[in-house]
């Protein structure tokens, strides 16, 4: 495969940042099809249109996901990328790899694919870019048999579940994100590997409200760690921060001189619900008003820690802006203790998931994310399905509709009435 002139792409190598163009040129020395990636992308830049066709009947036997068909619409000019399928691998929980595992995966991908990877895709998968249809089955065999690695989700499947580092490295983890992620990945193998839903469905697990995997913004089902008692305060450490013994934010912003730490300016005044104050040199918190923004804990990690009654809040329905704009997930279950039963299952989490699925599979339209279904039918309907009593926190502003729509079973005596009896007691 010949080199192509790529004056537009070459511009992308001139900035201060590492460039994928440089990576592709380097990889093309070993894998000449990478010259054709560059050539086709240059053509797309000139034509201002993509030259990839996506989709098709590609996959491996028994699976209905994990591989995304990709073809060039100018295969005669760029035969090296005539087929250029994407393979998604299920990443280990929290993306902990040994370097040996990464080498093995890269070596296998050099053998069967272009060698180009994307670490990681938005759902967390290890994404292997560019292979041909005949290479798929041998690649899959070696992945599963030699590397003990499975494909991830794509299409109308449950997408590869993803979690934050959790308790493996973080003292704020309010539940074991890695174990929940792994357990549910194993529990829902059928849903990950074969289509089941009107559209994609994503799980993400964050151990605390810092939400390091952006579960609230990117997943249909976000499990975000929280606590239901009081923030733990070490008053001696609070004094230490005020005196300057400890660096605020654990040194995260220490590249610049911000002056002396000012607890009023940097913590108390920034609390979104104004639920913190000082009494002399003692820090006070009205925990009933805390919205778990994590700011105070992030600034003074030595002094403040999440409470001890830990669990998770479940939010449902985030999505990217394909229809109606981007949407955050809606808080649905304020607090759930995330614990395993004696069968090794997270039965309470599974129960919530399946209640959502049973409803969405029935009511959701084709290509409609669960968040869009909720928006279409309205939150009250969804809460009724979930058997959740509405809370003030479920709404983002005071009610603007003055009417209350009672259901018949909520009204004493129902809707049937004796009109003559009614007239006797009420003005004509």
């Amino acid at each position, binding site marked *: 495969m010949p080199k192509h002139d790529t004056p537009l792409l070459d511009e992308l190598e001139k900035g201060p940042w590492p460039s994928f163009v440089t990576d592709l040129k380097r990889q093309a020395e070993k894998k000449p099809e990478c010259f054709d990636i560059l050539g086709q992308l240059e053509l797309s830049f000139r034509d201002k249109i993509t030259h990839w066709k996506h989709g098709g009947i590609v996959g491996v036997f028994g699976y*209905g996901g994990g591989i995304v068909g990709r073809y060039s619409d100018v295969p005669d000019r760029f035969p090296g990328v005539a087929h250029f399928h994407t393979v998604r691998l299920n990443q280990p929980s929290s993306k902990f790899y040994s370097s040996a595992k990464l080498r093995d995966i890269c070596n296998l991908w050099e053998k069967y694919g272009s060698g180009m990877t994307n670490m990681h895709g938005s759902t967390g998968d290890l994404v292997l870019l560019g292979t041909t249809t005949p290479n798929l089955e041998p690649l899959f065999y070696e992945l599963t048999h030699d590397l003990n690695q499975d494909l991830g989700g794509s299409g*109308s499947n449950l997408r590869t579940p993803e979690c934050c580092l959790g308790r493996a490295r973080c003292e704020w983890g309010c539940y074991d994100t890695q174990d929940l992620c792994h357990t549910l990945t194993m529990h829902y193998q059928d849903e990950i590997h074969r289509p089941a839903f009107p559209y994609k469905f994503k799980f993400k697990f964050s151990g605390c409200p810092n939400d390091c995997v952006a579960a609230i913004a990117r997943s249909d089902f976000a499990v975000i760690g929280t606590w239901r008692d009081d923030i733990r305060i070490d008053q001696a450490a609070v004094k230490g921060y005020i005196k300057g013994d400890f660096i605020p934010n654990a040194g995260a912003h220490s590249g610049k001189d911000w002056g002396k730490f000012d607890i009023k300016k940097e913590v108390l005044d920034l609390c979104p619900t104004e639920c913190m104050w000082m009494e002399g040199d003692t820090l006070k918190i009205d925990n009933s008003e805390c919205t778990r923004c994590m700011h105070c804990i992030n600034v003074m990690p030595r002094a403040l820690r999440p409470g001890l009654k830990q669990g998770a809040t479940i939010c449902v329905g985030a999505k990217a802006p394909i229809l109606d704009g981007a949407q955050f997930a809606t808080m649905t279950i304020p607090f759930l203790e995330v614990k395993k039963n004696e069968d090794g299952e997270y039965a309470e989490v599974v129960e919530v998931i399946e209640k959502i699925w049973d409803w969405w599979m029935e009511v959701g339209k084709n290509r409609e994310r669960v968040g869009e279904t909720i928006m279409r039918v309205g939150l009250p309907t969804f809460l009724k399905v979930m058997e959740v009593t509405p809370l003030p926190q479920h709404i983002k502003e005071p009610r603007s509709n003055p009417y209350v729509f009672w259901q018949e079973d909520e009204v004493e005596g129902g809707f049937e009435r004796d009109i003559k009896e009614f007239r006797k007691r009420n003005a004509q």
Partner: protein
Amino acid sequence: MALSKDELKAAILEKALNGPKAQLYVKDFYACDPEAGPRDVKNAANDLVKEGKMDFWSSGSTTMYAAKGRAKDEEHR
């Protein structure tokens, strides 16, 4: 479920083979047995793929079903 699993599979395959659309969403098969649950329908459709009678067609974000040979691969479009 009004139909047995085999009857449901036959109804799904009939729709995939002779319906006006070559590629169908899983929800398009719900009408094959309105009394069957969505899970029963998707399991029956997925079985037909396993048996080699239907194919998955996926755009990467959505998956559709087609009777073997009815969906055209992007390579040939």
